[in-house]
């Protein structure tokens, strides 16, 4: 028996368990931690698909950077769970409708009609020489170069927008100028003053 199905079911079980707990668990910190676990296990499943580049990038970007910031924010926020639960019963029908809609959409898109083994052939097993990173790179910069560049520009716009939204010049804030600090000379800071010694008659009384 091959070990791959065992690994697949093991990781899938953890993945489903973790993703359910993300939405069920009460403490938002635990929710974020379970999301990290979910990312990890899906990375492991991608590794089984020989997509090592995507798997490691998932860990690098989402676990290593995005979730750190998430945790950062969640720890800083004082989340009061009371008001969040208030309208639970009232909003339950709306939530159920949305959930059912999403379920139907998912079945339409990835249901057995479009996504079974008959529609999409099983992925080919590659040898040890196969490099997923190289394949991805060559296809991204040849076949998909326009979508890739457009995505890059959109990201750039997002970066600039985020920076310009947070850039507020406050007149009362004092800024350092490290270049000037480095260039400081002794004479700029210290002034030697010669003073005459005071007369001794007031001393000692």
């Amino acid at each position, binding site marked *: 028996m091959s070990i791959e199905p065992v690994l697949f079911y093991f990781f899938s079980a953890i993945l489903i368990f973790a993703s359910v707990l993300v939405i069920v668990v009460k403490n938002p910190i635990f929710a974020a931690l379970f999301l990290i676990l979910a990312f990890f296990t899906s990375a492991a499943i991608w590794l089984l698909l020989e997509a090592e580049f995507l798997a490691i*990038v998932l860990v690098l970007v989402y676990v*290593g950077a995005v979730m750190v910031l998430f945790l*950062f924010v969640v*720890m800083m926020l004082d989340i009061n769970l009371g008001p969040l639960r208030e309208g639970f019963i009232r909003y339950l029908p709306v939530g159920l409708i949305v959930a059912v809609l999403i379920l139907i959409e998912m079945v339409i898109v990835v249901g057995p009609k479009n996504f079974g083994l008959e529609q999409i052939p099983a992925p080919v097993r590659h040898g040890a020489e196969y*490099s997923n990173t190289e394949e991805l790179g060559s296809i991204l910069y040849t076949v998909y170069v326009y979508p890739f560049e457009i995505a890059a520009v959109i990201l750039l716009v997002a970066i600039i927008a985020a920076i310009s939204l947070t850039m507020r010049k406050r007149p009362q804030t004092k800024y*350092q100028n490290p270049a000037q600090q480095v260039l400081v000379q002794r004479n700029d800071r210290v002034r030697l003053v010669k003073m005459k010694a005071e007369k001794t008659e007031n001393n000692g009384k």
Partner: protein
Amino acid sequence: MDTLLAIWNSVPEGIQTSLVIIIKIVAIVVPIMLSVAYLTLAERKVIGYIQVRIGPNRVGPRGLLQPIADGLKLLMKEVIVPSKANRFLFLGAPLLALAPALAAWAVIPFDDGMVLADINAGLLYILALTSLSVYGIIIAGWASNSKYALLGALRSAAQVVSYEIAMGFALVCVLMAAGSLNLGDIVRAQEGSLIHWFWLPLLPMFVVYFLSGVAETNRSPFDVAEGESEIVAGFHVEYSGMAFALFFLAEYANMILIAALTAIMFLGGWLSPFQGTFLEDIFSWVPGIVWLFAKMAVFLFLFLWFRATFPRYRYDQIMRLGWKIFIPLTIVWILVIGVAILAQIGPWFD
């Protein structure tokens, strides 16, 4: 001997390979743990001599048994869990700090072919794992239920995330120069002589990478996460005993890892420094692993030297160094390397 061999051959093949891998892991982890122990002694000795003291010299000859005494002491101490702290996360955080520091060693080549997992995406794997080490700190800070610990955790999270970007870009330069993500191939691309090593064409990246590494390991002068003078000990203020020791192990294992990575990516890993000179034949009996260890020792000494020399950076100055100096520098150098590769400037890119 023959009976042992017979027993070995009777074991099924799958279990045989797993056993070999486990033995290799032990052969990597045990020396790391030993070097961590003696790195703490080296640190105290080096800093001692820099400050014109002698350092620990009471336990064993010349203080050589000091780390063992320290370890025993930490083992005997009680692990105290603060009230209202999250017990599970509080005790899990030190493990989360240590595990990535050890797991990253899987792809480190100690000599030509002497590597546990020779994977193609080795460099990415290293980046991913070093970015995980921050979780131990964040979770420890939050789970301690203490404001000092939380402040230390937040500082550390912001710092590690910012320096990771500079680190990643520096590694992009390395992979452009080597044309591979495999650490073994990166070393092989530096073959030739001392000049062929990447420290020369990537000199600014070499500096950026090592300093970002110092910042990532939360070592002085970037140790605001601990900052004794303002937040007592930061994220590990509530820890004691073995849980505290695990944080120390993680920090020192990370230091050794950064030293190894810098040596591999910029100083030619296991390659002899005398390659291409008349000394090459004289020193050809030295195994490559010795050269790697010698290079790592140099960087580890730098870590200790920094700690003894520089005062702690102020928090906003750390951020300024990371975002306003290192990141622009790395982006410019990516362009420079791209042009150098296009122009086939020798002896690296021809």
